[in-house]
C-alpha cells in the first residue's frame, strides 16, 4: 500500500541540533512578547488613546497569558505619568448627609488628616485651658455679679420707697410680701384693727401699689437673666475664637494653595466655635448611657478627615487588578455601625473601592467575575459613562432597608479599564449589551498559536528559559526543549504552529522539573518531559481505559481484522475535563427497496445533533447525483452508530457512513483492519476534521492491545496531514510497517482502499465498469428502480375500477 504516509509525515520533529544552546541556563530572558502582534497593537492603541470609551477588552482563552502581558505592557506608561491626587471625604457642616470630597496633591491627604487630628487634640486642651484662665473666670463672675447687683438695686430701691411709708419688704417662705411696720416690727393684726378706717385703707392702697411695683421688678428678672446669659455667650465665643484662631490660621496658611481645603478649614473653625461646649465638657464624667451610645465620642468624629485614597509612596499611576469585583469592592462601600439597635453611618465610614484606588490609572478585571457579581457590571458601566464615582450602598440601591444613609459628593473618574475574558463573553456582550461597544472600543484579541519556524522555536526556548528562571526551575537541555516544542505543536493541533497557551507550557515545565528533581538530575532532559506528558495523560485517562477494556472484552464490538459488508470502523473523540481521546465506533448500513431516503437512526431517536444529521442528509445527495441521476432513487437505507447510547454530534463520521452505505449497496466487504474519519460533501470529496491525532491514536490503541497485524491503519482526510503530531509509539509502529495512515481526498479513493476493489471511472454515458464498486452500486440501484416500478404497476392493475 504505497499511498500510506511516510513515518516522518506523521510527526514533525523538532531537531535539537537546530537549537543553538546546551541548556536554557545559557539563554537570555525573552524581552519581547512572541506571537501576539495583533493583541499588542490593539493594547498599545488602547493604552495611548486618551479619549473616554477607549477601554479595552482582552479576549482569549484562559491561561494564554493575558494578565501577564497586560501588566507588563502597562508598567512602563504607568511609571511615566505623575501619580494622581489623594482623595479625602470630610464633613459637610451645612448638610452632614452630603459629605464633601477633597482632592489633594499626592501625600498631602495624610498630612491634612494628621494636621486636623492634631488640631482637634490641641483644641481639646487649649479651649478648656482658655476657659480656666483667671481672666475668663473673673469676667464670667463679673457678669454674674452684675446681674445680682441689678436685682439687688431694684429690690433695695423698692424697699426704700416702702420704708418712707413705714412699710417693709418681708421675705416669706415662697417670695416677698409688704407689711406696715412700727419701730422695725410688723404691725400686728390687732394693732391694725385699732387704726382708723381711713388709715387702714391708705395702708392697703400703698401696699397694693408697692406690690404692683414688685411684680414689675420680678417680671424683669428673666429678661435680665437672659441678657446676662447672652453676654456670657458672647464672652465664651470671644474666648473660643482667641483659643482656636491661631492654630487654625496656621493650617490655613499651610494649605493656602488649596482653596477647597481652606474653605473646609474655615467651616471647621466656625463649627468649633459654635460647639465650644463639646470641647469644654471634656473632663466631665460621662453618664453610663451616654458612654453606651458613644454620643460623646462621636461629637468629635465630625472633625475627622477620612483619607479615602492615598498615593504618598507611589510613583506613577496605579495599575490595579481587582480579584473580587463585587459591587462594593468596585465602587466603594458605606459601612454602618450598630448603636443601640440602630444602624448608623457617617462620612468616616465611606470606604474606597477599586475604582477609587485605580482612579487616574488602570484597572484590570476578569469579565466572568465582574459579570457574575450582582450589580457590579452595571455599576462599572455607570461609573465609566458618567465619569464620576458615586458611593452608594447596595441596600439603598435596591431600597431594601432605609437606614440613615449618606450621599457623598461624587469624585471625578479618569480611568482605563482593561477587562480580561474569553471570546464568547466578548461576542455575547457585543450582541446583547448596547453600552458595551461604546465603553469598550478596543478589542485585544489574543492568538492561540504562532508560526513554527526556526526563529520562533529559538524564541520559544528563550520563553522556557525565562519562565524557568522566574519559577526557579532546573535548567532544561535542548532535548527537553525540543520535546516541549513538539508537545506545544501537538496541543496547537497543527505541525506548522506552536501553542501560545502559557499556562499549559508553565504546567509542563513545572511537572518536568518535578520529575527531574525526583531523579536528582542537574538538568531537565527529554525523558523528564515525556514522563510529565505521560503522567498528565495517565492522570486523566481512567474513562479511556475503561472504554478500551470494554472493546477488548468484546462488550463493545469492534473488529480489527477480516472484512464485512456494510460495516465500517468510524472514529469519534470524547472530551472530558480538558482531556480528549479517540475511540472507534462500529458504523453499519442496511439497504432495502424504498423511496430514496437515508434514515439516520441516531437522528430518529434524537441522539444525533444537527451537524451530524446534515452530514447524513448529504449522503442521499451524493447517492442520487452519483449513481441515479436519471432514475428514481429507489433505496431505503438505515445507518447506525452501533452501541452508542449518547449524543453524537459532528460530521466527521459522514465519510465512514458513506463507505458503509456503498459497501452495503455493492455487497463488497470492507476491511475491518482499517478505520475511517473525515466528512464528505455532495461531490464525494473528503474534507478535514478536528482532533485527527486523538482519533488515529484511539484506533491504534485498540489494535495494539490485540496485536498489530501490519494490515491495520486509518484513513484520514488529506487536508489533515498538516495536523499530524502522533504519539511516539504509533510513529514507531508506522516506521516498522505495522500501522498505516492513508490520506484520502475522495470517496472513490477511500472505498478502493477499504474494499481492495477499484471504485471505477464513469464512461461517456455515465456508466461505471461492471466490476468496479461504483458499477456494482449503480447496477444494484437500477435493479431496485425497476423492481419498484414493477411493484407500482402491479398495484395499479389491482386497483378496482
Amino acid at each position, binding site marked *: 500500500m504505497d499511498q500510506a504516509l511516510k513515518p516522518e509525515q506523521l510527526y514533525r520533529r523538532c531537531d535539537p541540533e537546530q537549537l543553538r544552546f546546551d541548556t536554557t541556563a545559557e539563554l537570555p530572558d525573552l524581552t519581547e512578547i512572541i506571537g501576539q502582534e495583533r493583541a499588542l497593537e490593539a493594547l498599545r492603541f488602547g493604552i495611548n488613546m486618551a479619549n473616554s470609551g477607549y477601554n479595552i477588552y482582552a479576549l482569549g482563552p484562559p491561561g494564554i497569558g493575558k494578565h501577564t502581558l497586560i501588566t507588563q505592557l502597562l508598567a512602563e506608561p504607568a511609571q511615566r505619568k505623575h501619580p494622581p491626587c489623594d482623595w479625602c471625604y470630610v464633613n459637610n457642616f451645612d448638610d452632614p448627609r452630603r459629605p464633601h470630597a477633597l482632592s489633594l496633591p499626592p501625600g498631602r491627604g495624610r498630612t491634612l488628616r494628621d494636621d486636623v487630628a492634631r488640631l482637634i487634640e490641641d483644641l481639646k486642651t487649649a479651649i478648656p485651658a482658655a476657659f480656666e484662665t*483667671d481672666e475668663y*473666670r473673673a469676667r464670667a463672675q*463679673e457678669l454674674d*455679679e452684675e446681674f445680682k447687683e441689678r436685682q*439687688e438695686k431694684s*429690690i433695695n430701691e423698692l424697699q426704700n420707697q416702702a420704708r418712707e411709708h413705714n412699710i417693709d419688704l*418681708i421675705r416669706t*417662705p415662697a417670695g416677698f410680701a409688704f407689711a406696715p411696720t412700727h419701730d422695725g416690727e410688723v404691725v400686728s393684726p390687732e394693732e391694725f384693727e385699732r387704726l382708723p378706717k381711713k388709715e387702714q385703707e391708705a395702708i392697703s392702697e400703698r401696699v397694693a401699689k408697692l406690690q404692683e411695683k414688685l411684680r414689675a421688678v420680678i*417680671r424683669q428678672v428673666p429678661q435680665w437673666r437672659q441678657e446676662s446669659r447672652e453676654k456670657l455667650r458672647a464672652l465664651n465665643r470671644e474666648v473660643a475664637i482667641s483659643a482656636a484662631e491661631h492654630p487654625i490660621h496656621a493650617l490655613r496658611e499651610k494649605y493656602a494653595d488649596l482653596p477647597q481645603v481652606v474653605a473646609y478649614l474655615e467651616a471647621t473653625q466656625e463649627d468649633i466655635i459654635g460647639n465650644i461646649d463639646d470641647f469644654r465638657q471634656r473632663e466631665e464624667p460621662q453618664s453610663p448611657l451616654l458612654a453606651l451610645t458613644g454620643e460623646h465620642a462621636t461629637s468629635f468624629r465630625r472633625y475627622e478627615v477620612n483619607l479615602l485614597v492615598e498615593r504618598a509612596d507611589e510613583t506613577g499611576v496605579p495599575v490595579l487588578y481587582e480579584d473580587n469585583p463585587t459591587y462594593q469592592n468596585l465602587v466603594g462601600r458605606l459601612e454602618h455601625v450598630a448603636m443601640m439597635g440602630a444602624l448608623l453611618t457617617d462620612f468616616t465610614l465611606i470606604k474606597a473601592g477599586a475604582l477609587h484606588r485605580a482612579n487616574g490609572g488602570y484597572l484590570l478585571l476578569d469579565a466572568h467575575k465582574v459579570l457574575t457579581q450582582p450589580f457590579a457590571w452595571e455599576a462599572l458601566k455607570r461609573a465609566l459613562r458618567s465619569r464620576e464615582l458615586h458611593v452608594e450602598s447596595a441596600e439603598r440601591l435596591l431600597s431594601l432597608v432605609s437606614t440613615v444613609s449618606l450621599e457623598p459628593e461624587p469624585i471625578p473618574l479618569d480611568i482605563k479599564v482593561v477587562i480580561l475574558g474569553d471570546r464568547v463573553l466578548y461576542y455575547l456582550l457585543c450582541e446583547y449589551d448596547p453600552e458595551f461597544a461604546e465603553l469598550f472600543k478596543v478589542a485585544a484579541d489574543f492568538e492561540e498559536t504562532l508560526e513554527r519556524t526556526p526563529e520562533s522555536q529559538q524564541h520559544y526556548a528563550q520563553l522556557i528559559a525565562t519562565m524557568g528562571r522566574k519559577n526557579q526551575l532546573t535548567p532544561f537541555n535542548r532535548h527537553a526543549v525540543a520535546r516541549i516544542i513538539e508537545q506545544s505543536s501537538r496541543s496547537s493541533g497543527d505541525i506548522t504552529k506552536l501553542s501560545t497557551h502559557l499556562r499549559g507550557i508553565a504546567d509542563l515545565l513545572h511537572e518536568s522539573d518535578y520529575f527531574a528533581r525526583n531523579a536528582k538530575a542537574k538538568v531537565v532532559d527529554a525523558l523528564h518531559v515525556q514522563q510529565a506528558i505521560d503522567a498528565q495523560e495517565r492522570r486523566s485517562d481512567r474513562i479511556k481505559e475503561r472504554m478500551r477494556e470494554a472493546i477488548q472484552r468484546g462488550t463493545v464490538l469492534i473488529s480489527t481484522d477480516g472484512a464485512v459488508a456494510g460495516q465500517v470502523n468510524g472514529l469519534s473523540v470524547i472530551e472530558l475535563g480538558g482531556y480528549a481521546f479517540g475511540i472507534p465506533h462500529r458504523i453499519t448500513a442496511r439497504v432495502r427497496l424504498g423511496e430514496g431516503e437515508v434514515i439516520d437512526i441516531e437522528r430518529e431517536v434524537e441522539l444525533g445533533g444537527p451537524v451530524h444529521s446534515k452530514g447524513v442528509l448529504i449522503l442521499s445527495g451524493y447517492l442520487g447525483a452519483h449513481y441515479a441521476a436519471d432514475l428514481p432513487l429507489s433505496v431505503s437505507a438505515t445507518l447506525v452508530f452501533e452501541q452508542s447510547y449518547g449524543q453524537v454530534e459532528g460530521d466527521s463520521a459522514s465519510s465512514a457512513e458513506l463507505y458503509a452505505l456503498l459497501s452495503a449497496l455493492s455487497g463488497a466487504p470492507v476491511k475491518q483492519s482499517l478505520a475511517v474519519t473525515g466528512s464528505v460533501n455532495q461531490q464525494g470529496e473528503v474534507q478535514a476534521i478536528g482532533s485527527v491525532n486523538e482519533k488515529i491514536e484511539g484506533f491504534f490503541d485498540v489494535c495494539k492491545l490485540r496485536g498489530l497485524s501490519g494490515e491495520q491503519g486509518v484513513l484520514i482526510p488529506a487536508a489533515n496531514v498538516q495536523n499530524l503530531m502522533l504519539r511516539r509509539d504509533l510513529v514507531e509502529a508506522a516506521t516498522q510497517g505495522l500501522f498505516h495512515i492513508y490520506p484520502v481526498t475522495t470517496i472513490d479513493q477511500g472505498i478502493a482502499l477499504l474494499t481492495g476493489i477499484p471504485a471505477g471511472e464513469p464512461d461517456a454515458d455515465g456508466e461505471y465498469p461492471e466490476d468496479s464498486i461504483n458499477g456494482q452500486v449503480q447496477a444494484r440501484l437500477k435493479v431496485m428502480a425497476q423492481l419498484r416500478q414493477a411493484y407500482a404497476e402491479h398495484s395499479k392493475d389491482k386497483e378496482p375500477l
Partner: protein
Amino acid sequence: MNDRNGVLAIRRILVAVDAAPDSVAVLETAAVIAAGLNAELRGIFVEDINLLRLAGLPFTRELAWSSATELHLDYQRMERVLRGRGAHARQAIVSVSSQLKLHGSLQVVRGHVVQELLQAAANVDLIILGKGGRAASGIRIGSVALRIAQEAACPVLLLTERGLPHQQAVMTTFTGQTRDELSLSMASRLARLVHGGLLVVIPAATQDEYVRRQQQAHDLLREGSLSITYQSVKTPDARFYQRLAMAERVGLAVLDLKEENDEELQNRLAVLPCSVLLLR
C-alpha cells in the same frame, strides 16, 4: 475667747435654720465644720413673729419670686408652714449628727429672728448662718445676716449657697499685728478642713515691709502640707477683695472686724462673692 496659744477655741457652734429651703445646706456645712473642729452643734429655728403677723393682716399677699404670682396668706397657713419647716430642720439635724457622730440638737423658738439669734449666740463660740437673702433674689447680704454680723459678740460665719466649697482657697489678710495671727491660724485650719489653698493678702506700703510681713506670716504657718500664696497690695479696698476672690477661686474669706463702720461692713460683705468668717 482666745486660749493661751492664740488659737481660737470653738466648743459650741450655733447654726441658724430659717424657713428658706436652702438653709438645710447651711446646716450640713455647719455640721461638717462642727465635726472638723470637734465641737457641739446647736441648731436654732426661729418662727418669725413678723411673718405670722404679716399673715394675719387682711390685705397682704405673698408674691412668689420665681413666677410673680400672687398667693393668699393667712395665719393658719403660715403657722403650718413654719411648723413644717421646723420639723424638717429637726429631722435634718438629727440625721446629719448621727452621720457625723457629733452632738447635735435643735431648739425651736417663736419671736423676732435677730433678737432670738443674738440671745442664743451669747452662749456659743461661733454662729453660722446663711449669708444671702433668697438665693435667686440677687440680694447678696440678707438683713438678718447683716445685723448678726454687726451685733453678735462671737465670731460669725456667713455661708453662701455654695457653703464651703471643697478644694477652694481660704483668703485672709495679714498686717503683722498680733490679732491678725488669730485670723491666720483660723484660716489655715479651715483651709485644711476643705483641702484648699491659703491665700494671704499682705497690705504693705513698701517692698521691705511686704517681705518682712510675709516672713512673719511664713514663720507663723510653719506646719507644712498647705499650699500658701501671698498677695501684696498697697491699700486694699472692697473691690480689690472682690476681684481677688473671683480670680483665685476663693471659697471663704476670713475677716477681722476692727474699726469698720456698719456701712463699710455691709458693702464688703455684699461684694465678696464667697462665704465670710467674721472674727472679733
